[in-house]
């Protein structure tokens, strides 16, 4: 909707679609993929919290989600839980693959 965004803590899902600042493809394949497509927040976050320990420390979990809230909430969860938000990559069918690195 908006032509230009400047400054600030983060970008909106639309801004991310309009002008991707992150690489379109992840650099590292995920060790685990959680399919939360069609699920509303907080379910994708709950699935992530339940299963992140299934990968080794340093491993990457991909959360597939199409609830717009997940685009904001997965990175916010990472910040609160001291894990790393690696990036959010658009899926061809809509939604994102949101990659999280287990830090501990």
């Amino acid at each position, binding site marked *: *909707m*908006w*032509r*230009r*965004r*400047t*400054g*600030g*803590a*983060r970008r*909106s*899902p639309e801004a991310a679609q309009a002008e991707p600042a992150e690489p379109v493809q992840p650099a590292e394949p995920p060790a685990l993929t959680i399919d939360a497509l069609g699920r*509303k*927040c*907080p*379910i994708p*976050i*709950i699935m992530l*919290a339940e299963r992140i320990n299934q990968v080794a420390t340093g491993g990457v979990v991909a959360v597939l989600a199409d*609830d*717009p*809230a997940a685009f*904001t*909430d997965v*990175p*916010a*969860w990472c*910040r*609160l839980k001291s894990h790393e938000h690696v990036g959010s990559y658009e899926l061809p069918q809509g939604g994102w693959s949101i990659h999280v690195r287990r830090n501990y």
Partner: protein
Amino acid sequence: MAYLDAASTEPLHPAARDALLAAIDAGWADPARLYGTARRAQMLLERARAEVAELIGARPDEVSFTSSGTQAVHLGVLGTLAGRRRAGTRLVAGAVEHSSVLHAGALHERSGGEVEIVGVSRTGRVDAGAFAEAVARPGTALACLQTANHEVGTLQPVEEAARACREAGVPLLVDAAQSAGRLPVPGGWSVLTASAHKWGGPAGVGVLAVRKGVRWRSPLPEDERERRRVPGFENVPAIVAAAAALRARTEEAEAEGRRLSALVDRIRAEVPRLVPDVEVVGDPVLRLPHVVTFSCLYVEGEALLTELDKAGFAVSSGSSCTASTLRPSHVLEAMGVLTHGNVRVSLPRGVSEDDIDRFLAVLPDIVRRIRSSLGVH
């Protein structure tokens, strides 16, 4: 029921109620006519205008009354853009402005204008440097900044923004909807908007003040009302009540603000202590005296609101499941904070300390029950 949703609407102030009842009898006639009852309505209207003008730091002839705060913003944004067409078509606004600002911006964009949105920090405060750079870009017709955010309470850098706008020769619209009557109105605005029901006046009264010398052209068909700024018959009794409420509220603001702010501090400190996995959002210091917002991990906002309602608490939420759009609040999104499990507590005038004690007593168990229903323990 404990009403903790003052940021949506403040209950009618007793002074407004008295003024409204009196003005319904004395101020019903058409203030544009010339007979006795009409002159009386006009006198009441002009007295209310003078009073509001004094309280917001304006001249009476700069102040118009609208039918809502939203209408004041729409007219303020679109009218200033229309008046400044020759200067350019760029509109600059903060990312967490009220939807009325963003919707007016979207309309402007659909009509060929340009909109630049300036981002905010994690606490929801507009980046003053980025705002100054944005208004200095050529072709900027108008900049908009709220005094304080309606969802998280964070105060905005209005003085810095006003300085930048003055240097760039760009008018600044300040949306004071959340702070009018609670905090002093900052100077430096070119256009000021506010909403009476947020300060304890009746619904249906907004304030649009346009500084003398600021170019403004009505985006609507004009008539003779409100200095040709707002078409339609004025609601004189409600305007009189709005002025009375603003006067009363402003006089109480310092003492009541201090009391509410201490209660907010308490909620800010106690909620994360009593409830695990909670993020209190918004600036802890640079904030409105009466608003506190937090998000609970692994909780649906709608379930939380429903349970709090059952327990006797009226609060609001920016979570997507509580919004008709199914999109989380653009404010929380722009801040990059948790959007689910979100609760905004906003304290009305005179709220009792007992209500806050009770709120803090019931909240932990409600959150625990909702989490456990989702399998989170």
